[in-house]
């Protein structure tokens, strides 16, 4: 019987582990990659000591250590499933010490719910797991060591250490566990021992905030924040709930069968509610954006286009990355107006200034600017994001982009500094060492295709501009880089965004001598050129480019139709779906 129960318990745990692994490996891998890059973990004594010097620093350090593995899909998924299992089993183990394991069984899985919260996923889980495991051992010590004065001393020292190292995670659990001890002594009329335990609780409960408050001059909200960095108060809330409810119900005198069933029903309900809530809160669009960032940083532009086809972009940042991917694949001129919501489709850069320091805004703007050779804009947004983070939370992916821009523009001193930081990491050291070879070596830089291309891009003049003047910036750069197809197309589409046909015709003419389209002028450009020609009152016979006869005929029809207040949009939508004319005549 016991064996059957054990098999059942382990089987259920393993099934959960497999589900978690599949979830991360097949679905949430983009998020893992980006979050893994968020954690700059340095192998340096100074770095370790800095963390250990403040409450819960140890836990954060452990979390950062784990989080950096997330950049590897298989390792990340395995790690998460192991962590979750460890967490679930440790909660359960604690319950078994109470001899109330069955009561906790269902509820121990409630922790799964935490998966679906973005802010929890990276640091929250490793923190929780390490915290719970440590907590479990302390508890075992507390319960199993003989009840002597030595035990109280060990307990006090350990509790102090645990509070300091693990912060808030232990704060709640430890307090609950000692509360259990108090109850144990009270029932046996061991009042002094109970009082001592109470003193420990009060001492530690007050000690932790007090130390933080006075030593670091923090206020209480800061103490709370540091105690639960990354995981947020929700973790504490759920854990409290998971621990308190069964404790309360478990000690209702004379438990009977009805109570047990009722208890399990309540637990099941809780798990279902939380998991449903969790699943509902999954941000699919964000996950696709993370995947796009992964593809972009690995130059897998085709994959971004595929991703956009399978899952149409909804976020502005995704549209922006999708547009640069289209350009890289040579599909921009044909597919720019296709498959994305009309309100976002035209953004070449995100336009929402409120999100300036967000990951999605900085990643998309930075990547597009980098690919176009807009050196300061690229540097600015990668730096901007890192500047908005705490000192030790620099984004490694952005740091790498920063390094490439800096080397390309010859800022070797600064690049060297950033490379020295990256050399202290576990997984980026090799990359940093390779990039170091470019430092102060202009010849080698010019031999590298990516860096040389960037370096050759030069602005003829300096300008003061803002993001809304993207066309000015692109034009300024294009003027001195006439062979650059990406810039040319971006500039043309930016002008078309403003429905400025005259400027379009001028720029198109300027670039047509340098940029070739072997399959003929793209349909979107044919539409813009013919429309400009007709609207300017010029004869279509004099148009110096080859425009398809059908396009010319339709252009005349649309023009005269719109001139006589005819709604030409249905015709345009039907005959030319997903093209410039639809955008132009759609308000």
């Amino acid at each position: 019987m016991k064996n059957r129960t054990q098999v059942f318990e382990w089987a259920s745990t393993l099934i959960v582990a497999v589900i978690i692994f599949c979830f991360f490996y097949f679905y949430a891998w983009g998020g893992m990659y980006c979050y893994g890059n968020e954690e700059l973990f340095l192998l340096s004594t100074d770095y370790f000591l800095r963390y250990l010097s403040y409450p819960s620093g140890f836990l954060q350090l452990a979390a950062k250590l784990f989080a950096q593995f997330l950049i590897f899909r298989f390792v990340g998924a395995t790690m998460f499933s192991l962590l979750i299992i460890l967490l679930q089993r440790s909660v359960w183990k604690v319950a078994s010490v109470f001899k109330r394991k069955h009561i906790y069984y269902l509820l121990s899985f409630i922790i799964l719910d935490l998966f679906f919260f973005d802010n929890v996923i990276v640091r929250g889980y490793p923190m929780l797991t390490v915290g719970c495991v440590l907590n479990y051992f302390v508890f075992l010590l507390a319960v199993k060591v003989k009840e002597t004065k030595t035990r109280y001393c060990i307990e006090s020292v350990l509790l102090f250490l645990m509070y300091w190292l693990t912060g808030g995670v232990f704060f709640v659990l430890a307090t609950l566990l000692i509360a259990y001890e108090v109850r144990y002594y009270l029932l046996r009329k061991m009042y002094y021992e109970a009082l001592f335990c109470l003193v420990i609780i009060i001492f530690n409960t007050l000690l932790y905030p007090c130390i933080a408050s006075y030593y670091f001059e923090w206020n209480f909200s800061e103490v709370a924040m540091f105690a639960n960095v990354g995981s947020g108060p929700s973790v504490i809330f759920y854990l409290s709930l998971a621990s308190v409810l069964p404790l309360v119900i478990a000690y209702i005198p004379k438990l009977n069968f009805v109570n047990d069933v009722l208890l399990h029903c309540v637990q099941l309900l809780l798990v279902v509610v939380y998991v449903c809530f969790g699943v509902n809160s999954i941000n699919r669009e964000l996950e696709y954006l993370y995947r796009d960032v992964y593809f972009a940083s690995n130059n897998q532009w085709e994959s971004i286009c595929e991703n956009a086809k399978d899952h149409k972009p909804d976020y502005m940042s995704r549209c922006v990355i999708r547009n640069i991917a289209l350009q890289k694949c040579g599909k921009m001129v044909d597919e720019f107006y296709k498959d994305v919501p009309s309100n976002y489709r035209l953004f070449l850069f995100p336009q929402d200034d409120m999100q300036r320091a967000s990951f999605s805004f900085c990643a998309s703007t930075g990547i597009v600017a980098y690919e176009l050779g807009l050196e300061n804009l690229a540097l600015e947004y990668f730096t901007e994001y890192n500047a908005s983070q705490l000192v030790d939370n620099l984004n490694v992916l952005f740091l790498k982009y920063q390094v490439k821009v800096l080397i390309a523009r010859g800022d070797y001193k600064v690049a060297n500094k950033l490379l020295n930081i990256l050399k202290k990491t576990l997984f980026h050291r090799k990359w940093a060492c390779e990039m170091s070879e470019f430092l102060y070596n202009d010849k080698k830089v010019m031999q590298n295709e990516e860096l040389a291309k960037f370096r050759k891009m030069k602005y003829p003049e300096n300008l003061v501009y803002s993001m809304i003047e993207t066309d000015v910036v692109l034009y300024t750069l294009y003027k001195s880089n006439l062979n650059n197809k990406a810039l040319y197309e971006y500039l043309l589409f930016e002008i078309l965004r403003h429905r400025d046909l005259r400027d379009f015709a001028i720029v198109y003419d300027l670039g047509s001598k340098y940029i070739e389209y072997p399959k003929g002028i793209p349909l979107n450009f044919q539409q813009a050129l013919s429309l400009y020609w007709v609207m300017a009152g010029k004869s279509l016979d004099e148009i110096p480019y080859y425009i398809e006869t059908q396009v010319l005929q339709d252009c005349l029809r649309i023009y005269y139709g719109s001139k006589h207040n005819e709604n030409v949009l249905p015709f345009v939508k039907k005959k030319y779906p997903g093209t410039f004319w639809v955008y132009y005549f759609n308000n």
Partner: protein
Amino acid sequence: MNKFSHYILLFLFLFLTACTERVVDATQLNEKPVLYPDYVDVTVPYNIAPLNFQLNDMEGVDWVDVVLKGSCSGDIHISTRRLVDFDKQEWNELVNKNKGGEIVVTLSFRKADKWYSYKPFKIYVSGDKIDHSVVYRRIQYGYEAVGEIGLYETRLDGYNDRVIIKGGCFNCHTSNQCNPKQSMWHYRSSGVPAPGATAVITGDSVVMLDTKTNETSGGFVYGYWHPSGRYIAYALTGPRCFIPLCQEPVDEYDHFADLVIYDVKANEIIKDERFTTRDFFNAPAFSPDGKTLYFSYSKNKYMPVNYKELDYDLLSVSFDEKTGKLGDKVDTLFRASTMGKSVSFARPSYDGKYILFALCGYGMLSVYNKDSDLWLYDVRKKKARALTEVNTDESESFHNWSSTSKWIVFSSRRDDGFYARLYFAHIDSKGRFSKPFMLPKKDPKTFYGDFTGIYSVPEFATAPTPLSRREIKARLFEGGRKKVRVRH
């Protein structure tokens, strides 16, 4: 003694002997070492923290041996693998014994089992004491993001940083002649979590001001205390950051710049129509006797199109302490515009002998200008000179004097070309500066290497900031703001 004790003693002996190496048959090199930070031939105050350092290039070096010998008396011998980490007590004893003298440093290193010795260098110990601490702003380099921006205080006889306040946009900390009991700073905010304010600290009292009025062009920005503590001269400007296409990643220009006097006691702005015109009046500073106000001036320019033509000259105007009014006579002390340059942040020494300022290509925020250099104006001789002994090719800016006017602190990007660090230099009786040295740290290479923030707006403090961070924050977030009035 039993057998066990013998083993312990043997182990201790082996451990201690294994951790030291002796310099044997060293090859003498005809050059001085390149250190990080560069402490070769610098002048330091006798109350400075130990100047820990290491060889800048440790490639292949497996052992370093350093001998410090005082010209008067005392010595220190350190044998280490990397960091030359002085014992604080030993260091203090050595520098105190050699006040006014020098310390000769001999550095040897072992590479591929061979010892080499550099040419000895000197650390000159000045008899002039440096102030208790330096207060500065630490900020991540970004366009808008605030990150970990905050005001910090670092004791100069130690390494620890103390947070005065952080967690928002705190800037332009200014005290009255290095006295932390009379200081001010700004908190910029869009209203959340607390409205913006100018904090004026006098003794234990902190007043949070709302400095925007209908009759002035903007809020207080660059301020400077009158020595009496009664007034603060302010520039009202509208600085804007932007991203130029090339050169500096971020630059800044002013939309306008007016000059006003704030009466701390009466909580009133004293406005003078002559200094609130369309021309630019910026970065005021009182002379130590309080009778003159120095400021930067430029003719009106069409902004931001001509932001690179905004060249400030150094001017002065008399000041009447009784009425708080500016006098009639305005003098031009240094006409930088004729050189196509701009004077930024004139800072008179507290002994009244000099005015230190940054000279850069354009505008006021010299930190963004790579060509920004420090210049010294001799008040008596009425002549200015570039501080060639201090300047480098990188930007030098945000300078201030110590309370004794014997030391200066400034912010420079010389270390890695981007991240500004703090440097200190000593001025002698002839007005010559010593070679600057970097703010000491316990392990400088690791600290400055990993740190991606910048140090800006440093100034000396003669004592610790009297208010705790909690107290300051409480006042800030209480929400109450005292509205500033305009005197008619």
